[in-house]
């Protein structure tokens, strides 16, 4: 294995592993295509206010008793039997209206903002927590490792969804107060925090294992001999070596965070009304599934596309960074 590594390195003389990885990624057209899809989705989410202006409304503005004219016909946005209008493919109600007369397309894009914000923030929190815990537990060993590992065991044994639901419901009422820091119950930081903590556990264990094996290696020994303290070693030597593993996990963590946020919001334990998120939109849509299926289908498709894009991209990143990728035979 080591031979093949060096062989691969020598074959492309002078190119470092990162450049090599980037090159492999660039050659993977499928991954690039889905990466572009994800970028487009992010762009759409960022453009939400623009679309809101075009449609002339905001994501929580109800238009229950409004009417609009389509093809010369005046139609109710929401009929008296609460059947909302379907997609009009125009600026107003492009994707139709929901049970409260809100513009679905506008809500979808703002929902994208919320879902993506929570997904990315949660991932960031997971990374910070996991890297810190993994480094501390793996390098310092002893009682630090014991405490961290047992703590991880407890959180890991806790049924993930149950923990998420319990915390989501509990914290949603009156928010969180840690000392001077206070987060209101309706804030999106609550689900982000919960998902972040839960996700950290999945990353912390492998990272800890990696650190355990890395700390025995020569370069660490050398740094110690040079008089570097634990902090220097952890941040200066070990951290960079974790980078490629961490990078592989990032797209997967974001994808899972978005799915988990959807699940929590669907159950009412995530984003609070009237803030849109794909999960809450699906939850609302299911009540009107017979009369207005677009309310369920549209946010679900967006969610699947986003997560799919991240998963394919994640696959591509993993293939690019994994040194064994060059050896994988293709027949």
């Amino acid at each position, binding site marked *: 294995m080591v031979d093949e590594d060096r062989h691969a390195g020598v074959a492309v003389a002078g190119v470092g592993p990162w450049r090599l990885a980037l090159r492999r990624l660039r050659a993977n057209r499928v991954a690039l295509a889905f990466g572009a899809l994800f970028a487009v989705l992010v762009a759409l989410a960022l453009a939400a206010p623009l679309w809101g202006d075009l449609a002339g409304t905001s994501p*929580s*503005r*109800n238009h*229950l*008793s409004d009417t609009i004219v389509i093809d010369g016909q005046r139609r109710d946005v*929401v*009929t*008296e*039997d*609460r*059947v909302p209008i379907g997609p009009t493919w125009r600026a107003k109600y492009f994707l139709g209206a929901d*049970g*409260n*007369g809100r513009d679905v397309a506008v809500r979808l894009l703002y929902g994208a903002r919320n879902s993506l914000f929570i997904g990315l923030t949660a991932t960031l929190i997971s990374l910070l927590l996991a890297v810190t815990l993994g480094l501390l537990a793996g390098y310092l060993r002893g009682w630090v490792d014991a405490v961290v590992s047992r703590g991880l065991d407890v959180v890991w044994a806790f049924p993930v969804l149950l923990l998420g639901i319990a915390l989501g419901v509990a914290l949603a*009422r009156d928010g969180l107060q840690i000392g001077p820091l206070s987060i209101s*119950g*309706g804030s999106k930081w609550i689900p982000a925090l919960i998902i972040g903590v839960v996700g950290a556990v999945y990353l912390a264990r492998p990272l800890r294992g990696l650190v355990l094996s890395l700390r025995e290696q020569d370069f660490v020994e050398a740094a110690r001999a040079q008089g570097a303290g634990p902090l220097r070693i952890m941040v200066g030597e070990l951290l960079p070596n974790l980078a490629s593993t961490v990078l592989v996990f990032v797209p997967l963590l974001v994808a899972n965070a978005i799915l988990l946020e959807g699940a929590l919001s669907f159950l*009412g334990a995530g984003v*609070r*009304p*009237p803030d849109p998120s794909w999960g809450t939109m699906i939850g609302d849509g299911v*009540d*009107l*599934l*017979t*009369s*207005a299926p677009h309310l369920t289908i549209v946010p679900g498709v967006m969610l699947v596309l986003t997560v799919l894009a991240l998963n394919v991209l994640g696959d591509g990143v993993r293939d690019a960074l994994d040194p064994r990728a060059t050896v994988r035979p293709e027949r």
Partner: protein
Amino acid sequence: MHWTLRGLAGALVASMVVGLAACGGREKNKSGEISVAVSSFPDSLDPALAVTAEALQSLWVVYTPLLTYAHAEGAAGARIVPGLARALPRISADGTTYRLKLRKGIEYSDGRPVKASDFEHAVKRILNLESVGTPYFERIAGAGAYLRSGKARGDISGIETDDSTGAITISLDEPYGPFSNVLAMTFGALVPSDTPFENQTKRPPAGIGAYKLANVRVNRGYDLVKAPGFDIADTPKAQLDTIAVEVVKNRGRQTQSVTRNDLDYMTDPPAPDQIRSVRDRFEGKRYREFVTNSTYFFFLNHRLAPFNNKAVRQAVNYALDERALVRVFGGLLEPGCNFLPPGLAGYEKIEPCTYGDPNAPPDLARARELVKQAGAEGEQVTVYGTGEPEAKGATEYFADVLSQIGLKGSPRIIPSANYYATIGNRRTRAQAGFANYFQDFARATAFFSIVDGASISDTNSTNFGNVDDPQIDATLARADRNPSAEAVSKDYAAVDRRLLEEAHLVPYGNRKLSVFFSDRIDFDDCTAWHPVYNLDYTSLCLK
């Protein structure tokens, strides 16, 4: 299953009885069993405790109090008639003493004779079990002392009964006009005197009614079985053998089942996304809607900004668009601008509506002006509501309306099991929220109790908005002393108008409920809607 000899014998007898009944001739094609679905198990099957409409719809035909309501539709159904008592009570001139006599020879569904003292036992149960009905029955003299003594078998001085003559004399601390209505509540239904002082949902006591409870499986279902020995003058008997009630949480599935004739009746309205198809296909044939005596409103907390300011409260009333709310309820809402529902003595339709025609667009400009003048622009308001589709939609709508007139409204959805305890708790500091009221009994007093200053309490308050208007309080105190609601209907109408003028809350309409049956039920002749208890089970029969 263990087939003991006794069990076999019993089964044999039962099958013979059924066989004989089946050969009954004329009644054969009209009896039988129907299946009913409810969305949630009743809060209790113990008459001393049951409060929700689902519970009472069934318990009304199983347990009979001294007085009851006439089995009729519309206003006639709100009339109080004798139940187990021989006649309406003789009320003393000062209104504090009620005299009744028990009918002779009546028996419980298990065959035991009814005694007058059973009434006192029923009241003791209400008081001991901390029932919702307690405040009403605490008006009886000696009830407070009884509770304080802590002795369950103690005596309530204000109730005197004579088992040999069947006489019952009730003395109140103060005159209370609606007391006849109180006696008609199922809380006061007579049960055998050996019924324990415990919630008897799992083993409901014997009662006197057209049906009796059987096969109770808590949280899953129960049966209403025809009570063969039931015979009280002017009270209809059961026409079906069995009504099997099952809990099916999903309204969509209930609706589909009834549509396909797999289910005979669902107590809830159809699922929101099937209302249109049910109306189109079955209106008048298997489906009908009724306006109930209920009021749907948003409460506004008088003790907190910004609604301690009358101008802001009026602004909200101007801004509310009842057409929008009708849509949230899928058309199952009758818009109106009174607080009292039509059909009650004291209802006088306010015309023109204080804050604009409910069927026309609201005056948002005026609302915004009022808010600005009151200096309340930008104030944060949290609107509480529950998670059911209609309540959630209404709450989100209302929060948006507040945002449209210069406030900053945001909804907060709470599970219904915790809702009333939450908004009734002073510490919650709920500024506004979704609320509704279905009558406890058919008199305006019940509705006004939620805007009566006397109802304000720190916990479990029913006056969510802390409405404390001395004029209203005084009028109600006076009117409630009169046993006849018709006599004081003008007073009630005045209170209704003042509620709107002072914008003490934001009423928007009366709920419509529905009946949706399968093909088997005789829709034209056998479905009666009662103003207090919704569908009258004794009216049901098969084709």
